């Protein structure tokens, strides 16, 4: 029971992080390998903010989210767009964008190392125990879960109930058809990429409340987010949320019953199962 609840709490936070990547890959069609570094940068930013001010980390969102939005918008506008225009086909764009975002991720790591050093950082906020169904849990995990849930629901409603959300979903389905109904695909993609970065950064802030971070950890989160997105199906948010809970549960089971050092292996096993059994994802439709 304890495992299930911890796994669900973790999964909720993972869902937020994966939704960010899904916006970037599903709508803007950029496989962003620097996604995890944005998350770690946000976690470091929260750490710095909390250590300096002792104000609730949630307040840090006010600064982190717009900043991540602007930075990611700039990355799309000035680094990705030239690649989109240069590429002759989708395959070329994939190779170029993977290499470029890979380079960006190294630059992020380099900057984080220069500013914060190579140590593991964590802070203690709301670390008081909460009693739930006979077991005790850290209040910070529950707060992170609730915060993530609020943002996830907000994003879901925004995507499904507003005109801007409809625009993004149209681009996700088919960019060239979207441009026929006078959608500015470039602007929509830039918006999706920037929004995705902002959502990921919010995920980083949530995770920083109960995890320990160091500068090189980004790639692990990139991988986890990718596994979730692939498992859920690239274009379906419900799939990503379900997949996030599956990953959160699996990781917790492995960490508690086997060894905490094997969480990545757990993610890989899930990845393999999905690749072999259902490559289009849980909710994805089979394409040609």
């Amino acid at each position, binding site marked *: 029971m304890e495992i299930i609840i911890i796994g669900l709490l973790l999964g909720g936070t993972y869902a937020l992080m994966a939704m960010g990547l899904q916006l970037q890959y599903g709508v803007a069609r950029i496989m962003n390998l620097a996604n995890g570094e944005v998350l770690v940068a946000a976690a470091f930013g929260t750490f710095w903010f909390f250590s300096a001010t002792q104000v609730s980390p949630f307040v840090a969102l006010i600064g982190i989210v717009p900043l991540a939005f602007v930075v990611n918008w700039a990355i799309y506008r000035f680094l990705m767009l030239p690649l989109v225009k240069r590429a002759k086909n989708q395959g070329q764009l994939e*190779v170029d964008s993977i*290499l470029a975002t890979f380079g960006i991720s*190294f630059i992020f790591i380099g900057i984080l190392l220069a500013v914060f050093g190579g140590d593991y950082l964590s802070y203690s906020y709301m670390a008081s125990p909460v009693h739930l169904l006979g077991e005790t849990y850290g209040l910070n995990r529950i707060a992170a879960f609730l915060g993530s849930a609020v943002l996830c629901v907000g994003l879901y409603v925004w995507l499904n109930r507003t005109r801007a959300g409809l625009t993004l979903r149209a681009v996700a389905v088919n960019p060239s058809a979207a441009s026929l109904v006078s959608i500015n695909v470039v602007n929509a993609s830039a918006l999706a990429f920037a929004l995705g970065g902002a959502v990921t950064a919010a995920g980083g802030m949530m995770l920083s409340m109960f995890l320990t971070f160091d500068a090189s950890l980004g790639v692990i989160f990139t991988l986890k987010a990718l596994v979730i997105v692939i498992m859920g199906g690239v274009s379906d948010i419900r799939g990503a949320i379900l997949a996030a809970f599956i990953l959160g549960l699996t990781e917790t089971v492995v960490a508690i019953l086997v060894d905490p050092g094997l969480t990545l292996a757990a993610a890989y096993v899930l990845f393999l199962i999905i690749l072999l059994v259902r490559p289009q994802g849980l909710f994805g439709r089979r394409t040609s």
Partner: protein
Amino acid sequence: MNSEVRTFGIAVILFLAAATLPLISSGYLLSIGVSIAVYTVLATSWTLFSGPTNYISLAVAAFFGIGMYVVAGGIDLLPFPVLVLIGAVVGALFSAIVGLATLRISGVYFVIFTLGLAELIRQVVSWGQATMGTSSGLYVLTDFTDPQIYWALLVLAAVVFLIGWWIGRSRLGFALRIIGNDEVVAVHSGINTARAKVILFVISCTFASITGALVAPRYSYVEPTIAFNPFISFQVVIMALLGGVHRLWGPLLGVIPFTILWELISANFPTQTTLLLGAAFLLIVYFIPHGIVGLIESGIQKWKGDQHG
């Protein structure tokens, strides 16, 4: 045919010239020579698969580490050449499994899968060592000298070049180039794309494992974080891209300047290497997308155009 004989002759002369390095120098220069030889094998064999197909593999470190670990784990039990062979076989089997699982689907999934592979194996090996109660470090004590390792690597490099040359002329190489151009076209022309990709991936990874096995004696102390260092993968990719992946000799042109430059950078700016590696990635992607080979070839084209114009 005539130009092919000439190219082959030049290659033999360069190979023999490279082989004299240990006779001239023993210390620092030779150690750079060994690094260049290691990365030449790794980058050229990487390009055998990733060059024509455009499938970026980030798994070199995983297979390099497997080879190294086989040697480190068995050095007290079996003779070194047998271990190198076992390392090659283990690397081949493992890459076949990875290839069969990921290469049947789109390229992005393959990249993602290889991205964390070295880290995955590192976690599993560390865990295995911890549960079996052995210490995480292994000593590789042999009486192999640097010149012997260097020559072994040179021979390996020659083998890679010969195989690469042969693949380039074979049906398999032709099939791969079509896959790289347009995978749908390849499928419709009756090419078994999955089989071609898996075969090349296995060849490429096997060489990485052999390289890891051969250089293991140089490290003398091996532990998971050393053997499965993901930076090796990234450096291999960047060197190959810098040189150019559409010619067999392209990666070599990237390996030599980059290895020397990297020696200088890591000696002078040890804390900024990650940042600089990232900057190098971006520079190559945006400014020299076809590598040094691309620069040379467009230069020649321009020069010829001027002559005729």
